[in-house]
Every structure is written in C-alpha cells, then in structure tokens.
C-alpha cells in the first residue's frame, strides 16, 4: 500500500493524478461500506453492530431478536439504502452540472433545479387526490419522482437557455436566473401549500425540511431505478465533460458530440435531482461540497470525479443521517438541517477563497 501511494504521489507530481484517483476510489468504497454498516447498527434502539456482524457470519442461533431484525431490515436498511441513493444522486448531479456549466458553483440546489423538482413533487402531494389523480393511477409509486423529474428538467432547460450564449455560460446570469427560477417555483409551491389540507400541510412541511425519515422499501423502489439510470449515464459523459472544460467549440473540435452530451447531462441531472428530491425533500449542499472537496484531492477529471462523488456523497449522507436520527433521540432532526448547517458555511468559504469567480 505504501509503495502504491508513493507511486501515485510521484505520478501526481508529474501531473498524472489517475493513480491517486484510483486509490482514493478504493478508499471511498471502504468508507461507504463502513458508513453503511454503522448506519445499520447504530440507532435509538440497541441492536448493536457486533450482534449484526455475528448474525451475518455465524450460522445457527442468531444473536438478534425478532424485534431487532425488523428494526434492522425493515427500518434501518431501507433508510441506509435510500440515503446512499440520494447522497450519490445529489453529489453526482452537482458534479455533472458543474461540468456542464463549466462552473464550480453550479449546484441543483443553488440554481433552482431542486426548487423546480420540489414544485413537481408538491403538486403531486397536494393535487394527487384531485386534479392529478389519473397521473397517480397511471404511474403509481413513480408518479412523485416522475413529477419531480419533469419539474427539475424544466428548470434546468430554462436555466441553460438563459445563462448560456454561444457556448459560454455567464456565472452571474446563471446565479441570478437560478434565484428567479427558485422564486418562481417557490411562489407556485406556496400556492399549492395554500390549497393543501391539514394532513398534506404536515407532510409538506416535513418533506420540505429534507429528511430520510419514513424511508421504506417502496420509496427505495420508486426512486432507485431512476437514480441508478442517471448514475449509469455518468461514465458515458465523463470524457465529454472533461473536453467541455475547454469550452464548447474546443470540445467539438476534439470530436465530442457536444449537443448530445449536453442533452444527456441535462436529463441525467434532472432525473437524479428529481428522484432525490421526491423521496427526501430539500437536502442541500451535498452537490457542491462533495465535488469541490474531491477536486481538491484528485483533480477535476470527471472519469474519477463522478464515481468518487457518488461514493463520498452516499457515505456522507448515510453518516449525516445517522447523526440526525440519534443526536436528539428518540426524536430526530431533519437531515436537511444538518447538511445546510455544515454546507452553507462551506459554500461561503469557497466564495471567500475564489473571490474573482463572478468575473469568470
């Protein structure tokens, strides 16, 4: 391991960070496995990690009680899986969007894509029994993530049209357009809240704070396939996103089919963000913090940045969720509060460090 690390270091010093990135990927996979195990074993109830590992490894009599089994396999496991899916979706969406807009500040949460997805989701929650009942009948458990996907797609397309001229994205325009889009989606969401009944209001409030509470296998099944598809698209656009760092024209000259690349990227971001928002509400800042940290560590090569973002995003969200559901046990804190409390100062720190960024 040490010699490998040394080799990776020497290569990185010569400008080739691919070895280093591969090592980091392996490490992140381990971290994710640990975080998941931890998330399964830790909680308000005392089904402990050793009993769990014991139950897996030793045949015969189980150390777990029937109650512990239900807690672990029906409550904690879907929650951990959902946390991994959502964390990976948010982090990869952020990284892809930053590559697409050629800007480290582009994040679905900041530029209004999550708000658009949220509007789609809220519409289904509030109007699901009335105006949108046929849609629910048709799509079943997928209605909510589909609606969020469409909302996110609409916002991303509008944002791209407004902020990008002749292959160049203006950062200031992008951020301002994001504010306008967020406000617009917020206004319509407000309207929905206005017509919602008491039970829907309660649902909406908790959903809006951002939480993995109430994770069920049904939720995992409704969002999982969409997020998995979006994540599977990532490796196919990684090289293209690297070339895009030189600008759209130069990427085209390198042989990248730029229009197709942009379409795939936009749909993938909208799908992943939409599905994540649909099942977990507004969990902010994962999409900006995770890719930024990883760029510092392994550089901006999307072939490694995208999978690394997925792993770290998943691990961080599972860990944050473990904290949020135990820190005030037996009650729990919405995870959105935890990520925002850590992420917002981090975002300010990036702004401080890169002051000239709006002139880019």
């Amino acid at each position, binding site marked *: 391991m040490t010699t490998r690390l040394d080799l990776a270091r020497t290569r990185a010093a010569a400008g*080739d*960070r691919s070895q280093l990135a591969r090592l980091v990927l392996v490490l992140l996979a381990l971290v994710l496995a640990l975080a998941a195990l931890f998330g399964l074993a830790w909680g308000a109830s005392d089904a402990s990690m050793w009993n769990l590992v014991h139950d897996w490894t030793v045949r015969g009599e189980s150390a777990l009680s029937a109650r512990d089994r239900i807690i672990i396999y029906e409550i904690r496991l879907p929650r951990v899986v959902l946390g991994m899916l959502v964390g990976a979706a948010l982090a990869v969406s952020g990284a892809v969007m930053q590559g697409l807009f050629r800007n480290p500040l582009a994040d679905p949460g900041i530029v209004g894509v999550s708000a658009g997805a949220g509007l789609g989701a809220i519409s289904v929650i509030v109007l699901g029994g009335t105006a949108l009942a046929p849609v629910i009948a048709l799509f079943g458990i997928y209605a909510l993530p589909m609606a969020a996907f469409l909302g996110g797609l609409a916002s991303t397309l509008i944002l791209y049209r407004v902020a990008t001229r002749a292959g160049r994205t203006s950062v200031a325009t992008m951020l301002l357009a994001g504010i306008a889009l967020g406000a617009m989606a917020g206004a319509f969401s407000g309207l929905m809240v206005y017509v919602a009944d008491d039970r829907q209001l309660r649902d909406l409030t908790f959903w809006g704070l951002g939480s993995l509470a109430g994770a069920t296998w049904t939720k995992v099944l409704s969002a999982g396939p969409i997020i998995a598809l979006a994540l599977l698209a990532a490796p196919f656009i990684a090289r293209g996103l690297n070339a895009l760092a*030189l600008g759209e024209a130069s990427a085209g000259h*390198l*042989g990248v*089919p730029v229009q197709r690349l942009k379409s795939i990227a936009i749909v993938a971001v909208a799908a992943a963000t939409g599905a994540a928002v649909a099942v977990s509400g507004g969990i902010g800042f994962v999409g900006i913090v995770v890719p930024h940290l990883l760029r510092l560590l392994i*550089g*901006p090569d999307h072939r490694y940045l995208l999978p690394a973002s997925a792993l770290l995003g998943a691990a961080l969200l599972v860990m944050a969720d473990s904290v949020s559901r135990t820190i005030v046990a037996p009650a729990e804190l919405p995870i959105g509060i935890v990520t925002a409390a850590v992420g917002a100062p981090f975002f300010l720190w990036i702004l401080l460090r890169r002051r000239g960024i709006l002139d880019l």
Partner: protein
Amino acid sequence: MITASNVDVFIGRKQILHGIDFEAAPREFTAIVGPNGSGKSTFLKALAGEIVHHGEIFLNGQPLHSLKPWQAASRRAVMAQQTTLSFPFTVREIVRLGLTGGFSGARPGEIEQLPERALEAVDLKGFAGRYYQELSGGEQQRVQLARVLCQVWAPVMDGVPRFLFLDEPVSSLDIKHQIAIMQVSRDYARRGGGVIAVLHDLNLMAMFADKVAVFHKGRIVAAGAPRDVLNDQLVERVFDCRLRVGAVPAPGTPFVLPQSAL
C-alpha cells in the same frame, strides 16, 4: 486537401465573409493574414465547422457538413485564439485531452508518453505537473498547441494527410518561442500534414509560409507564394498603412528580424 468554394458567413444580419474561395494542400504551410476584423478568424471557424456558412467546404474531398464531430476530429485539430479553463487541471491533463477521440495515430505503446513528447516539442519539458491556470499567457498558448499536436500526432494516418488549424498560434509568445512554434508547425507540414494558420507577423509569415491568403473586408484579395503576394501596393491597400516591403532602415537604426536567426 482543404478546399472552400464560395463561402459566405453571416453573423446576425451582417455579412462577414463574401464568396471565399480557398485551398490548402498537405505538405504546405498556408498562412492567412489581414487586418483586424477582416474575417480571418471567422473563416478559420467556418473551416473548423464551428459556425454556419453558405457555400461548400471539403476536408480531403468530403463535404464538411457530412462529417460527424469525431470524423472531423480525426482529420484536423483546431487551436483557438483563446482558451479559458473552468477547473484546476494540470498541464498534463490538458494536453491529454487531445487524446480524447483516440485519433493520435501513435502506436499503442507510445500513447502514454505522447503528452510528455508534445510538451517537449513546444519547449515545456518539466511543466506537466504545473497547474494550467498558474502559467503565463505564452506558456498557456504552448500548452494548447501541445494538446492540438496530440490530437493529430501522426501527420498522415492511413494514408490520409491531417491538418492543423491554428488561430494566431504565436500571438503571446516571445521571439524565441515564436520561431520555435513556427518551426514545429512547418515541420508538421514537411512530414506530410497540412497547416493553416492565421498570423499577424508578416515577417514570420514570409519566412515560414509556403502559401498565403490575404483577407480584406471579408474577401480574399490576394493569394499565392509570399514572395509573389507581398508588395508595397498590397500592404498599403489592405492594411491602410504606407509601408515598403524589403526596405532596410537607415544605418544605425536597430531592427531584429526572425530571418536573422542562426
């Protein structure tokens, strides 16, 4: 062979190029000169397939519009006038982007070494580990050239000559590197490829170009070998500046020409 016939380009309502007929052969360095705003860069962008144009452009006999991006990328590499970067890539990572499409034409065993060799060719040996954004303007320009060289490393692939499209490749360089980069480009042509370069320095053009096309107000007003094209009347008409070609300054006045390089 690159040929353009009767190419018009409009940007908005304004017509930038008027009926351009142009040819660039392999084994030749073809320069494009002309005053600011005469349409040189626009024409290069049209050749690169970057902007909409009327008329016909052929890359080795195939119409440009029928080529997919990756097909065009295997036949020519393009160096833009300016490239801004959005993320902290190292120099090696940037140069490696030239290998994106896999058209370098180098042997499989050589490909990993190409970035280093390309950097050496542009006199940036040892810069691979630096961050692109920390380099000077002239160094960045040479990194981009190294990237472009990587893309079409072999001047001829499968018997087909390949081209370098360079938009002001030496504009930010000191005189040593101007000469070095011009030599690298001319060498590419000598080895069977073709080079089309927009240049501002008439002396460098005269020294390195086999052919030159002179742009003026969106038209080509003269084309041919530099010694046939460059004369007092043309320079005065095109550049709106009374200059004499080949005149030596008064004795005692210092002047340095690239032609004097030993």
